[in-house]
């Protein structure tokens, strides 16, 4: 567990490490996609091939939940979501850099007390998705979008869906609608957070000769988990949107 510099503004607390890591992730995604689509050739080079492979993969994901026409409409949405979460998950594993702060900086929330509990370690990089606020913001944005699209498609169908098949099922539907975004966010956050904490524990406790091998294994597993979770988050987002907008209801 490392401390992060925080700034209080208008009664809200802003975590500077998370803000910086989010911006860095967005920049990396932008660079990858711009470089991958510059100078498109009929016989793609290695890098273009790689980006096209990801695109085809996401097209497959969308075709599982939507029909072909709608799948193309949501392609860029799903691709953005997948690339952002994928890069964000790997960022904390690959760039886990912390700085030693010896003098307290109260303006950034790094007081004497906060520093002593983490042995003066301040994180410079961490996964944005290892912060629960980022994961909840992503999941709730998707849920709100799904509900708005559901109302826009057919208001009557949307509201009668809550009392189908029986009226007493209304509480069950409401619990379902709340549980979906909460588990959607926590699934992502908990996986990345637990992975990072275990890496920090293996790094800081014990001799390197003893914890070195488990550390390498766990870093490999974290990269794998980050990929799987990015995929699952994208699949669930498309499923939740298609549940509200599909033609069956």
């Amino acid at each position, binding site marked *: 567990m490392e401390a992060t510099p925080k700034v209080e503004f208008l009664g809200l607390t802003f975590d500077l490490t998370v803000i910086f890591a989010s911006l860095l992730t967005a920049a990396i995604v932008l660079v990858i996609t711009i470089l991958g689509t510059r100078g498109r050739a009929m016989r793609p080079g290695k890098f273009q091939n790689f980006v096209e492979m990801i695109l085809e993969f996401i097209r497959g994901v969308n075709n599982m939940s939507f029909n072909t026409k709608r799948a193309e409409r949501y392609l860029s949405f799903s691709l953005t979501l997948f690339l952002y979460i994928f890069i964000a998950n790997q960022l904390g594993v690959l760039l886990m850099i912390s700085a030693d702060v010896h003098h307290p900086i109260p303006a950034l929330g790094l007081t004497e007390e906060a520093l002593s509990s983490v042995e003066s370690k301040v994180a410079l990089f961490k996964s944005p998705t290892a912060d629960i606020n980022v994961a909840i913001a992503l999941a709730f944005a998707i849920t709100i979008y799904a509900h708005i699209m559901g109302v826009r498609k057919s208001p009557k169908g949307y509201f009668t869906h809550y009392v189908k098949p029986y009226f007493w099922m209304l509480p069950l539907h409401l619990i379902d609608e709340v549980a979906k975004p909460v588990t959607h966010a926590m699934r992502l956050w*908990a996986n990345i957070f637990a992975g990072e904490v275990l890496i920090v524990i293996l790094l800081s406790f014990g001799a390197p000769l003893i914890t070195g091998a488990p550390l390498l294994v766990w870093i490999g597993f974290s990269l794998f988990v980050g990929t799987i979770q990015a*995929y699952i988050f994208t*699949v669930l987002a498309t499923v939740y949107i298609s549940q509200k907008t599909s033609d069956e209801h």
Partner: protein
Amino acid sequence: MELGVLAGGIMIGLAALAAGIGNGLLFSRYLEGITRQPEAQSKLFSQAMITLGLVEALPIISIAFGILVLFGIVPPK
């Protein structure tokens, strides 16, 4: 503080138990499937990995909260 350590230990332990049972069931069926139909391995593998991600979610949420309680971050000391 001591109660927090106890609570964190119980949460992480139960999560390990649950994840062990869930993953054991999942992968025993996966192995059964590829023994019956070895040619379906590539198809079953990706499906098994998606299900692994879904099954692992609840234990890992419990582990994350267990870590938070164990290190005394939630609830505040």
